[in-house]
């Protein structure tokens, strides 16, 4: 099956993938600020806190229109966020305690309302519980439009306040001393995060939506040190996870979309943690090996120079065993000498007798110039 028929045939899949993709862009981009401000778990608390809002919105309006439910979710998430901020400000309860408290209490309250509604005789509530784990397959065109409009608005506001958000993310105190309304901007930024979360609830569910905030941003962070690049990359990773996850979950029966999308995002994180240039673990390991080699080369060269100082000529040859003794059990002297020989820095004059070459002497002097005691060799 080639791509064009694939996309032409499956209208549902196209809708779902589009919705999940937009969602990934919005949550990835806004998630960057949450991750940089060490508020990764705020998303978790707010997505759980949104549940009672969804049920209450349904109870009050008797409508299952996405817009109504999303607004209810946003309101509840927003109230939860304000409560968390104020609990931390006015009591000695730390942020983790406030987050876990609001998360579990709001979710429990939502659960109580949900079960209450479900047992009402006239209820047409069927399908509200899909908000727990998400059902992207049920996304309709109008849902995707809502996701697109609200998400686009959130990104627009993010763009308008880019400079302020950037400053507050990296140096909150400095921003406040410049006269920025730090508290209002904090609330605005977190409100944008609430929007990014609630538009994803229908597709990904309240339990796992937080991962879509954290994972793309954490992955993007590994590839760059610039905020603008990070936000763009996180949006891309989010979209990638969203589209791939939606596609995979549409293949298998009984696969909730939320978990599949989250696993895709987790794989992207794992790949980034390992292979991102400079910060990645594989790179770090390779750099450590390289440093070790350089250190070993320098140690052997400098040992040979020290020995040579005691002779008329700096090119006097010494037995490898002497170098081994001076090498303090680090080992691999033979191999190091062979490497240095290939670079033309040392030469083997006869069996196991090694001497510096002129290039080697220069290299030894160069490399030990900043060393504490080593002075250049005096030519006799």
């Amino acid at each position, binding site marked *: 099956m080639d791509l064009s028929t694939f996309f032409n045939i499956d209208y549902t899949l196209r809708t779902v993938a589009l919705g999940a993709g937009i969602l990934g862009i919005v949550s990835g981009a806004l998630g960057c600020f949450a*991750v940089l401000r*060490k*508020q*990764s*778990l705020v998303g*978790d608390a707010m997505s*759980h806190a949104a549940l009672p809002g969804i049920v209450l919105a349904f109870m009050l309006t008797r409508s299952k229109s996405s817009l109504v439910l999303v607004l209810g979710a946003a309101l509840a998430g927003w109230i939860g966020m304000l409560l968390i901020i104020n*609990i931390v400000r*006015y*009591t*000695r*309860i*730390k942020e*983790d*305690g*406030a*987050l*876990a*408290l609001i*998360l*579990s*209490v*709001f*979710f*429990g*309250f939502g*659960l*109580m*309302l*949900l*079960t*209450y509604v479900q*047992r009402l005789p006239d209820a047409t509530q069927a399908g509200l*519980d899909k908000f*727990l*784990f998400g059902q992207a397959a049920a996304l309709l065109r109008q849902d995707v439009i809502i996701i697109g409009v609200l998400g686009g608005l959130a990104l627009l506001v993010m763009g308008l306040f880019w400079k302020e958000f950037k400053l507050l993310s990296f140096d909150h105190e400095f921003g406040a001393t410049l006269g920025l309304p730090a508290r209002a901007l904090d609330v605005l930024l977190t409100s944008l995060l609430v929007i990014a979360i609630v538009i994803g609830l229908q597709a990904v569910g309240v*339990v*796992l939506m*937080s*991962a879509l*905030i*954290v*994972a793309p*941003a*954490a992955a993007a*962070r*590994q590839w760059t040190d610039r905020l603008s690049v990070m936000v763009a990359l996180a949006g891309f990773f989010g979209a990638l996870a969203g589209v791939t996850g939606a596609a995979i979950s549409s293949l*298998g029966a*009984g*696969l*909730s979309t*939320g*978990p599949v999308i*989250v*696993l895709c995002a*987790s794989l992207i*994180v794992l790949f980034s*943690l390992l292979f991102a240039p400079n*910060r990645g*673990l594989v790179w770090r390991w390779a750099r450590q090996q390289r440093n070790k080699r350089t250190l070993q080369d320098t140690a052997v060269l400098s040992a040979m120079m020290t020995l040579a100082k005691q002779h008329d000529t700096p090119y006097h040859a010494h037995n490898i065993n002497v170098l081994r003794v001076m090498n303090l059990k680090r080992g691999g002297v033979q191999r190091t000498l062979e490497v240095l020989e290939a670079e033309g820095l040392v030469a083997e004059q006869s069996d196991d007798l090694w001497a510096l070459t002129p290039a080697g002497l220069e290299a030894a002097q160069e490399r030990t110039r900043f060393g504490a005691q080593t002075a250049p060799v005096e030519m006799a």
Partner: protein
Amino acid sequence: MNSYQLEILLIAAVVAVACALPGVFLILRRMAMMSDAISHTVLLGIVIGFFLVGDLGSPLLIFGAAVTGLLTVVLVEVLNRTRLVKEDAAIGLVFPALFSLAVILISRFAGDVHLDVDAVLLGELAFAPFDRLVIGGVDIGPRALYIMGGILALNMLFITLFYKELKLATFDAELAATLGFAPAAIHYGLMSIVSITAVGAFDAVGSILVVALMVAPPVTAYLLTDSLPRMIGLSVGIGVAGAAGGYWLATVLDASIAGSMATVLGLLFGITFLFAPERGLVSLARRRSRQRYSFAQKALTIHLLNHQGLPEQAEECHMDHLQEHLRWDAPFAEQVVRLSERAGYVQSQSGELRLTENGRMLAAEAMVGT
């Protein structure tokens, strides 16, 4: 109340106490969100254990789940130690991944057994009494009561045996390490307890209520006391009260018991947040206003002392001048003067204020800086 209801209430109370005990230390050690992470990831252990053993009632499942709980802690720490992500992000990455894996495993391979994600997450206490423990043909009560009772006993034993170590490692980890108390061992011990409790409770009350029961009572108690033993005692009491109140509410509304308990616990916290004697919002506001007036009275006496007996006295020590000089608005100035008169610091004669001996002493004391 019939025996069925009594059993539910009893199980709920035992779960509440079992959760509150480790919860106190989670709050004090600022690790409350670990309870959220662990209560989700134990599902993976249960699923894998189920695939290996094939029996949902096997105690091996509890063991497997406890191991996954510890695995969560270790993974978060490993990730944190790479310094590539901060600790909060590490938690936010690890538990959704493991939980998603568990959910997918269940829906792909265990669809036909009673291992329902909704049930794990939300729990249904109302069904707990139907699962009886029968020994030698005799029905000796609901199985959940015995499992949670055992876990409660384990938690009590752990906290009693290592009370001193827990306390020290919680409040001063450096000192504990210096004295050789192995705070790392205590840390993992506590995390094991949290994992085992989360596993035991998932069946009865669901993982989200585990978080509510572990966090809400200690957080509420934290606003009421400064002493660790009293905080533990209060947490246990609040947990049991929340369980009982929640069960009542659930019966009235015919709604989820776990959800109702979390709701009642939230209400208890809300009441405490507002009205706690020392740290509640109301007493905080009252204390602030009292301090504001007491400071204002001192400022007034100092002002009067500075100008008394000098040529400008008639003008400076007059009621109407305070607004200009001390920048008080009229109602506030009147209130301060009224309070000062009542306390015997000043005397007022048609708007002109005069210090009493007491007022002079107050001003002198304030200026020396007691």
